[in-house]
């Protein structure tokens, strides 16, 4: 199953490398968000640092959202034929999940320093903890996004439905990620928030992988 997932993931990555149909629009949207934050908030608040964690995670969630929402719509014909392949159906889902993790990681890696520079808020000192927090938040969002993306891609509304399904669903993740990032600035303990995010990640990687087979049968 893992091997099949890896090859399917690689297929999507090479497609993305040739076409850049997901990352480019999502990345540009992320940068636009950074600019809009500048218009909306700078000048109004003397110091952006207290709200920077929230701005950062909203930026990451909203821009990833575009890429994640589209990922199940890539090559619909090939996806249908893939169901005939002698592989575990969970592998198809896992491959999309890996793709979404990669896309969201790239977006977060671009957006975090950009927002830091544009809003004039330095990143926290402890790089390792920042990377850990970003990683947990990004993986959780990609996992939940893959599950909801798989559901919404086959509906009449397609991506239009995704925000209504995904954003309330990921609210504990957003709370955890923002609180953990805020704790990095204040130097207080973020342990329980990291555990919460890790639990969210684990559960919503495992459960959709197990349930995905049902989705492919209808």
């Amino acid at each position, binding site marked *: 199953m893992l091997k099949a997932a890896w090859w399917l993931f690689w297929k999507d990555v090479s497609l993305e490398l040739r076409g850049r149909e997901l990352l480019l629009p999502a990345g540009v949207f992320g940068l636009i968000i950074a600019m809009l934050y500048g218009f909306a908030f700078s000048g109004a608040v003397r110091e952006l640092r207290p709200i920077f964690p929230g701005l950062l995670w909203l930026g990451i969630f909203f821009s990833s959202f575009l890429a994640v929402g589209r990922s199940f719509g890539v090559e619909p014909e090939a996806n249908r034929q893939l169901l005939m392949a002698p592989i575990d159906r969970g592998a198809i889902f896992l491959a999309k999940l890996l793709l979404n993790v990669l896309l969201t990681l790239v977006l977060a890696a671009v957006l975090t320093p950009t927002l830091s520079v544009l809003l004039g808020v330095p990143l926290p000192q402890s790089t390792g903890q920042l990377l850990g927090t970003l990683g947990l938040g990004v993986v959780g969002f990609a996992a939940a996004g893959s599950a909801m993306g798989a559901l919404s891609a*086959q509906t009449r509304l397609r991506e239009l439905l995704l925000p*209504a399904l995904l954003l309330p669903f990921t609210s504990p993740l957003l709370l955890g990620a923002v609180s953990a990032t805020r704790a990095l600035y204040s130097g207080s303990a973020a342990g329980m928030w990291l555990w919460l995010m890790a639990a969210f990640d684990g559960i919503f990687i495992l*459960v959709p992988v197990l349930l995905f087979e049902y989705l492919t049968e209808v």
Partner: protein
Amino acid sequence: MRYVRWLSLPLWLAGLYLALLWVPDIRALGVSYRIFYIHLGVAWTALLALTGNFALSLAALLSKGRQAALDRFAQASAEVGLLMTTATLASGMLWARVAWGAYWTWDPRLTTTAIMWFLYAGYLLLRQAIDDSGRRRVYSAVYALIVFIDVPIVYLSVRWWQSIHPVVFTESGMTITGQMLFAVIVFFFATLVLALDLISLRVTQEGLRQALDERRAERFERLGY
């Protein structure tokens, strides 16, 4: 099920009498707290209906022969659960305006209930956006399972803020007793019976609608469309 309907009205009237006239005022809260009887009844019923939605969705996913019927029950219980959640939020907000001075605070229970409202509104949106009945059944069941797992995580995450919501069940037992408890129980059953009534009504409606659709499709086929 048909006779349940006649039980709902007297129970509601009895509940209203008990809650509005029979129980004494609480000195600290005055008359405003009386909305609490409605609030608690609809809140418990909402939780039960949404738990029912989870169980019915699971059953609809695993069942071999009775999926369509189970699916109708799952849909109806989500609809009624959402209605009761709306009533919970509305009655709670009215009370909060009087007791706390604001319609809305970011208290864990309020926040969790609001998120739950969005999650189950999403369930109905998802159902509406799928035309094929088989796919609608499976997709909405998978969504219902994932969402039900999410609710305790949502609650845990928002509980890590300070809570100001009154708690009925504590470790030392219930905080309401005597007349109040009796009124609460009557109102809870009144709401529960109403919910069951609405669910059975919606299941019947959906069943008829699906039967009608099938007939229509058959007819079209026979006419050679």
